[in-house]
């Protein structure tokens, strides 16, 4: 492998914000203000609250688009804009500012978050219209958008951590939004606890950065990364990977994402498909200066990505719950992105590219699934769907756009991004490339299965189901996202020129592959189509039984989330339970035993001693005389 073009990321000069860029704080402030008004305003805001929520995020999206236009007009080397609000933490040599940095990488994230966020807010107006707590829902959504914007706009790891925790909180609140359902409450708790494991990784990484570099701002850490030893960088890299695994539901911290589908569907679309779960990819891509110099950490990233691609795809192929199947698919697609960031400079750009297209088409798919559920009395079981293409035409067409995008049929968006990742994988090693192609085939299978079970075949509806198309407020976002799913890949690659756009931040290397490019494309497409045909034959040509058949051992395992919960239970929950029991025994018997024993001894002894307080003055006098005699005797004896 000889690099043809070599360009590793160099640290960009950050220019202070002027003009429209001084509105960076407003970009975050608007949704934050919306969240504050909605959550603190109480029932008074019930009537107009949801519209305020849509308005704040929509305004942020408009500001973001204006910023993009301005940023594109600047020369590529001065596209990193910094804005410092005030000095936040100030302790000795440690100084952290509340400061934001808008560069090419942040910009694309800001656009994804605000635009997809706005669409999902609008969609939620329809989807949540019957929910009496919808004001709170929009408050939480606004809070999420604000936290996510802080995450991607921070110019240091500490502020990034604030956003990181903020999105975790919003995710918790929204998964458990219907907390009267015990399953939703449990799922929220599970997501929160598993995320904490990753958060510990991030906080340890930040501490290690401070110890090593004496600062946690991006420019200082990445600027002096070359001076740190490889061991330290590997440690930081692995800790960041742990953080990414938690947030992005990657193996081994993947178990929470499937349960997170307990939340309302717009939440699944915004947080658990399009934006928050990709924060791990952002973290690794942003820290490219560290991963470029820590080979082992980067290899670990690749391995995690590969394992998750296949786990997610397997789960997606077996679930009958349409949202959980999509969640498996999300895991798998984020696995692709994580794999791509693990590939180093040959993959960073494509990881972000896939992240953007995936954010759009997966949001579209989730919202489509929500629209189907909306028409089917919130039933999520695909075995009770079937033949819905007639009943909900717009949902069907938009879903098909997302479907073609995710399995990667040209010219739909996913084709361009996934093909780029497959190609980058071949540049790294043929084995990884082949594995990504196989996974693409499985993607074709499970997505075809989903579409066939939902929209084709015979109607297997429950008796009281009257499928109908959703209202316009829901279908218009679907249509916009479907247009995105269709054209975004082309637009970003050829018109937006995403490669040269992101290259100054992330670096871009190209290497030769073992197979010619055209061969890779043809093989990938054939494998995808074979997967799709298998799915079609199994689930559209043959009747789908309403009761799930027993299935092979792999299907049964996948229905149980590949025993992710059982493994967590055996490895973490039960050992800590036993440890807690032993500690509890030690505490109640040994520690309390000693303390209580001392108390009981003193108590018992005093119970006996007090009998000497007989009330007879003469007996006291006797004790005194006896004591005096003993003292005198002792003195005499000592003197002798």
């Amino acid at each position: 492998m000889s690099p043809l073009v070599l360009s590793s990321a160099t640290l960009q000069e950050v220019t202070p914000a002027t003009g429209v860029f001084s509105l960076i704080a407003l970009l975050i402030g608007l949704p934050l203000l919306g969240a504050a008004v909605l959550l603190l305003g109480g029932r008074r805001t019930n009537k107009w609250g949801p519209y305020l929520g849509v308005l704040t995020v929509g305004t942020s999206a408009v500001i973001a688009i204006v910023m993009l236009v301005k940023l594109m007009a600047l020369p590529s080397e001065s596209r990193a804009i910094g804005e410092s609000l005030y000095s936040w933490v100030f302790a000795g040599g440690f100084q952290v500012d509340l400061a934001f940095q808008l560069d090419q990488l942040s910009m694309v994230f800001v656009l994804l978050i605000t635009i997809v966020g706005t669409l999902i807010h609008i969609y939620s107006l329809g989807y949540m219209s019957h929910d009496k707590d919808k004001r709170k829902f929009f408050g939480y959504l606004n809070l999420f958008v604000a936290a996510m914007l802080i995450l991607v706009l921070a110019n240091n790891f500490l502020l990034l951590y604030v956003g990181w925790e903020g999105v975790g909180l919003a995710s918790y609140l929204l998964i458990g939004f219907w907390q009267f359902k015990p399953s939703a409450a449990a799922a929220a708790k599970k997501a929160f606890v598993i995320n904490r494991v990753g958060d510990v990784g991030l906080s340890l990484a930040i501490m290690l950065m401070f110890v090593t570099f004496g600062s946690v701002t991006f420019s200082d850490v990445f600027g002096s990364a070359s001076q740190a030893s490889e061991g330290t960088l590997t440690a930081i890299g692995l800790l960041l990977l742990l953080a990414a695994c938690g947030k992005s539901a990657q193996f081994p911290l993947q178990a929470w994402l499937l349960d997170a589908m307990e939340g309302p569907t717009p939440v699944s679309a915004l947080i658990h498909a399009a934006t928050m779960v990709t924060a791990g990819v952002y973290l690794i891509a942003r820290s490219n200066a560290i991963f470029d110099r820590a080979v082992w950490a980067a290899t670990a990233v690749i391995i995690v990505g590969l394992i998750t691609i296949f786990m997610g795809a397997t789960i997606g192929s077996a679930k009958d719950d349409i949202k959980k199947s999509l969640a498996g698919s999300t895991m798998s697609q984020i696995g692709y992105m994580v794999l791509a960031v693990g590939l180093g400079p040959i993959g960073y750009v494509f990881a972000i590219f896939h992240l953007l297209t995936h954010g759009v088409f997966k949001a579209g798919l989730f919202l489509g699934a929500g629209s189907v559920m909306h028409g089917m009395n919130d039933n999520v079981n695909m075995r009770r769907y079937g033949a819905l293409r007639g009943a909900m035409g717009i949902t069907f067409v938009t879903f098909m756009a997302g479907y073609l995008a995710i399995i990667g049929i040209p010219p739909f968006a996913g084709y361009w991004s996934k093909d780029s990742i497959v190609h980058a994988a071949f540049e790294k090693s043929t084995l990884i490339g082949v594995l990504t192609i196989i996974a693409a085939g499985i993607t074709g299978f499970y997505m075809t299965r989903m579409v066939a079970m939902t929209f084709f075949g015979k109607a297997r509806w429950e008796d009281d189901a009257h499928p109908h198309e959703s209202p316009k407020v829901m279908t218009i976002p679907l249509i916009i996202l479907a247009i995105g799913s269709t054209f975004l890949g082309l637009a970003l690659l050829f018109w937006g020129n995403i490669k040269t756009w992101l290259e100054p931040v992330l670096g871009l290397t190209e290497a030769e592959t073992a197979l010619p490019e055209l061969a890779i494309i043809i093989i990938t497409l054939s494998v995808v189509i074979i997967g799709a045909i298998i799915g079609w034959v199994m689930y559209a040509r043959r009747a789908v039984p309403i009761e799930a058949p027993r299935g092979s051992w792999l299907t049964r395992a996948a229905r149980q989330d590949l025993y992710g919960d059982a493994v967590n239970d055996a490895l973490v929950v039960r050992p800590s339970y036993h440890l807690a029991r032993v500690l509890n025994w030690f505490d109640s018997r040994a520690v309390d035993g000693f303390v209580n024993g001392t108390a009981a001894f003193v108590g018992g002894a005093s119970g006996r001693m007090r009998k000497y307080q007989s009330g007879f003055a003469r007996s006291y006098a006797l004790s005194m005389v006896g004591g005096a005699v003993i003292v005198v005797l002792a003195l005499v004896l000592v003197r002798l």
Partner: protein
Amino acid sequence: MNPANYVILSAVLFSLGAVGVLVRRNAIVVFMCVELMLNAANLAFVAFSKINGNLDGQVIAFFVMVVAAAEVVVGLAIIVQIFRTRRSVSIDEPNLLKY
């Protein structure tokens, strides 16, 4: 006369007083025995003063007398009160202040 004899006399008087305090029930008698012990102590002080050839012991003897006089005032008052309430001066009877 050998001053050590005064010390021995003092010890004998003190022991008599102590035994009196321990074995007698009548509060007045117990009180007198306490006085006996105090005066035995005074005798010892004066004897030691003579043996050592300085006046410290004699000075302390005066102090003891003053304290003893004050103690008699308080003690007798208590005894009179006890007699008024119980019609008896036995010191074994007021024994309520106990465990």
